[in-house]
């Protein structure tokens, strides 16, 4: 077919945006904001898979971001691992923990699942802030340098730190989006969306509902973990806030705001909630008021989330 598939279009749009916007950046600060957006985007993609596709709500995903972040901080110090491998270790650890935790809690539905996952997230952030001997406590801990920037520099590709993290996180986001889009239209993705619609019907067509939910949970935990690692590595410093429930709620909000079922939409949501505080600082003490207002207005007028609602307006059907 000559026509691009939705997947190809989405990836192309995303890649173009990541590559082209730096030309319009007035200062290096924008690279920082961009890279934060991408970091959040990676975590939100996990929410898209878990919540948008499979319909399972988690209010504890920041817990996995915390695991990824602290693995990146601690493994180099205590295990002598290179930070990159530490991040991978974090992802593996998150996957393993998600597997263990997911089994019991995914039997719960709706708000009960939400509160159970919330409990998990709080548990993680408590351990991170109470076990100060290991984690540095509530005030956080320093993180080793990834070293990739220097390596690239040696190869002749000289980037400032914000630039490097912008492109590196952008690349990670692109890969994440590619994976999520692959999943959407695959047998597994369809089965996930099916069990979202009706668990009983899904199981009568042969979907192993428990197992599939667990898979989605594990995959989304890995996304969150990678996001946490990226944040820790680029900040070179991390505090337990990364695992806090506010962050979990923020991730879900990003996904829903942009359109939880849509990959590009959720990234858009991450973008809005990342950029908004930067834009709204001009309102000084009115910042919170504006933030709350924007969130409400988006959801009132674009009730299925920004992107799906807009697409529906333009094409008469959903994304």
């Amino acid at each position, binding site marked *: 077919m000559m026509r691009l598939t939705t997947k190809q279009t989405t990836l192309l749009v995303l890649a173009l945006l990541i590559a082209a916007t730096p030309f319009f950046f007035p200062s290096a600060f924008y690279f920082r904001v961009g890279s934060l957006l991408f970091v959040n985007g990676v975590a939100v993609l996990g929410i898209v898979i878990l919540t948008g596709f499979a319909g399972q709500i988690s209010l504890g995903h920041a817990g996995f971001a915390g695991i990824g972040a602290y693995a990146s901080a601690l493994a180099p110090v205590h295990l002598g691992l290179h930070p990159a491998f530490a991040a991978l270790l974090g992802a593996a650890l998150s996957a393993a923990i998600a597997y263990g935790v997911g089994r019991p809690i995914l039997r719960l539905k709706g708000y009960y699942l939400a509160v159970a996952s919330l409990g998990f997230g709080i548990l993680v952030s408590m351990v991170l802030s109470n076990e100060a001997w290991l984690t540095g406590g509530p005030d956080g801990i320093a993180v080793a340098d990834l070293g990739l920037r220097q390596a690239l520099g040696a190869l002749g590709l000289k980037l400032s730190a914000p630039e490097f993290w912008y492109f590196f996180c952008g690349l990670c986001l692109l890969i994440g989006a590619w994976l999520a889009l692959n999943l959407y239209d695959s047998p*597994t993705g369809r089965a996930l969306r099916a069990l979202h619609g009706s668990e009983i019907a899904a199981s*009568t067509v042969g979907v192993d509902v428990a197992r599939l939910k667990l898979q989605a949970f594990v995959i989304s935990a890995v996304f969150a973990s990678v996001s946490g690692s990226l944040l820790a590595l680029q900040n070179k410093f991390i505090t337990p806030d990364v695992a806090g429930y506010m962050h979990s709620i923020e991730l879900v909000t990003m996904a829903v705001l942009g359109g939880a079922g849509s990959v590009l939409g959720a990234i858009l949501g991450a973008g809005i909630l990342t950029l908004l505080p930067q834009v709204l600082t001009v309102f000084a003490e009115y910042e919170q008021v504006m933030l709350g207002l924007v969130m409400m207005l988006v959801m009132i007028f674009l009730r299925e989330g920004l992107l799906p609602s807009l697409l529906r307006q333009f094409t008469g059907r959903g994304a």
Partner: protein
Amino acid sequence: MSLLSVEGLGIAFGGLKAVDNVSFSVNPGEIVSVIGPNGAGKTTLFNMISGVYMPKSGKVKLSGEEVTGFSPHLLARRGMSRTFQNLQIFQNMTVLENAIAGFHLREKGSVFADLLGLPASRRRSRKAQAGARELLARVGLANAAELEAGNLSYGALKRLEIARALALDTKVLLLDEPAAGCNAVETEEIDHLIAEVAASGVAILLVEHDMKMVMRISNHIVVLDHGVKIAEGDPATVARNPDVVAAYLGTQAQEASHAHG
């Protein structure tokens, strides 16, 4: 050997024995209908056979192997599929995707292949899609393939469920009121479809209140009342059974069934 057999199946809700000691069997290519008044326990029987409810007593056997209380996806793997009296549609998906979901067991592979979009995964998806389109055509929904399933009318949804249930390599098909919400002509189309499926060697268990249809296509009829089997036999015998007439058919319907029996 019968494909599906049920032995002494029973379940209770609170104090109510919704199904009590029911036994029967279905052979390949055979259409067995379960009829009975509202609340007789037909749907509950289906729910036990298909693994939605755990029976309190009795056995379900598939090709001689006991599968009592197996979860639905395990039964699906053994060739059982069903439709629902209360529609269970994947509302958030298109009509086509609903039908493709029916092919889940055939199209699924490893998650990693799916995540990476490996050619094998895409190939399986394409195959399932082709199969799904064929099925949609068979139930008359070819034109609706790209619509969101939530946009279909009731009768269309009913047929979509049938398509989805047919997608698997079904050996045993459970249909719970497939013709509800369809008019006489539409019902007849469904009739043909069911007969065709049965002819291909599938064992069909049917619940339906449309007596014309039941009398026309059943090889064997089981009558439930208050959870208990009160009669069984071929359509003509059952239709004449005074208990069945009194509890279920009523006089008018009996006339109708004679007219076509």
